[in-house]
């Protein structure tokens, strides 16, 4: 198989078929988090996994289509946050393809990076749309406390988002990594991803 640039826009049919699965996994991850009463969203496991398998372009497309679909079928506010999902897919895909899913330690580091990217991209959206709050009770309590102490709105809003994103995205990426590691080699190769052999 010829080697492709990771930014290649020529998607195979399997990559296209991967996108709806990523969106469905996002939905189901959220449902399972709720069923297990976990204080997390876990609504981007599919996007991260698609990015690990198909690279940044497939990750970004999965993220965008996820929020468009979610906006059309469940929560209209979700459209505004498509940008965050796109960047989560881009970041996860880029770093996965440059070798960040080869060990548990690196997967956790990738989780930190994704959490940071997610918070950095969401902060301007939260500030522009809602003057900084996120709708998460814990994060917003922190935001309010910081604002009373005259911390600038951008920093307070970033921390509001980051305290929630940090555990959420680290666990999201870690779960996606564990699944990715357990996938059959044939499937990984078909998606065009590289995976170090014998990682188990």
């Amino acid at each position, binding site marked *: 198989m010829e080697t492709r640039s990771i930014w290649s826009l020529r*998607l195979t*049919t*399997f990559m*296209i*078929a*991967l996108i*709806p*699965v990523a*969106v*469905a*996994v996002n*939905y*189901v*991850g959220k*449902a*399972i988090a709720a*069923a*297990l*009463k*976990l*204080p997390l969203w*876990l609504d981007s*496991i599919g996007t991260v*996994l698609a990015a690990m398998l198909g690279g940044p372009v497939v990750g970004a*497309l999965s993220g965008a*289509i996820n929020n*468009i*679909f979610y*906006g*059309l*079928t*469940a*929560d*209209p*506010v979700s*459209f*505004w946050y498509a940008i965050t999902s796109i960047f989560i897919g881009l970041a996860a895909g880029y770093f996965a393809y440059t070798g960040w899913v080869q060990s548990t330690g690196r997967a956790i580091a990738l989780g930190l990076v994704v959490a940071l990217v997610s918070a950095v991209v969401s902060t301007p959206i939260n500030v*522009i*749309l*809602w*003057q*900084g*709050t*996120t*709708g998460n*009770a814990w994060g*917003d309590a922190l*935001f*309010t406390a910081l*604002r*009373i102490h*005259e911390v600038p*709105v951008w920093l307070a809003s970033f921390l509001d988002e980051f305290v929630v994103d940090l555990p959420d995205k680290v*666990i999201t990426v870690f*779960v996606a990594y*564990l*699944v990715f590691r*357990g*996938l059959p080699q044939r*499937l990984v190769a078909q998606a065009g991803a590289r995976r170090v052999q014998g990682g188990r």
Partner: protein
Amino acid sequence: MRAPSLYVPGRSFVHRADPLTKAAWAFSTALAGFIVPDWRATAALLVLNLTLLGLAGALRRTARLILASAVLVATFFVAQGLSHPSNAEPLFRVFGLTFYREGLLVAWVLALRLWNTIAAIGVLVFTVRPQDLVTALLMRGLSPRAGYALVSIIQVLPTLSASVATILDAQRSRGVETEGGLRVRLRALLPMLAPLIMSALAAAQDRAVALEVRGFSRPGPRTILRPVRDMAGAAFWRAVGLGVLVAAVLWRALGG
């Protein structure tokens, strides 16, 4: 489980308007609600959108979505009421915390914008089947591959959701603890998700083969099985929608 959907069947004139006209209206008025410098204009847009939703018979759905946003709205009032920098005039005290008039007003504006977003986009999503919206976009040049990715979610999701309960039961019967402390529940995550994802990916492989033998990646134009036609005067109504947005921007730039 059926695919999630917000579509409310009906034959009102809002339903009969074509998807792209409604999309233009929905996104223009949602954005305009944020841009106009006076909250009464946002309120007027909200009332206008609610009227359209009332004509479409979708008010109950809208009310449910607006209620679902209650937590977000509550955080506006608490966060801004306590800590907005313009706060000067104390209004009341609860649990030793002082709420200020200015911050609560800011929160009110934010709440109106949120509700207007829900109502505006509701005009689109409550009255258009997602399939029809994608068809309309395909006719305007959306790539058939992107169109497929969007529409096939409607088929993939119910299958996957249906297996959630099955796998939950199966793993419990094998001794996976799904209740207890946070660590226990976190550890249950992987045995739940891994089999689901594996089978979904295997199905995606099969689907890719099935698509390929049907000429999915063949170049060239595609025909549409059930075309979506533009409503009469579509161009005019789209211009009205965009006009609202342009007016909001001009008002903000010149007057606000």
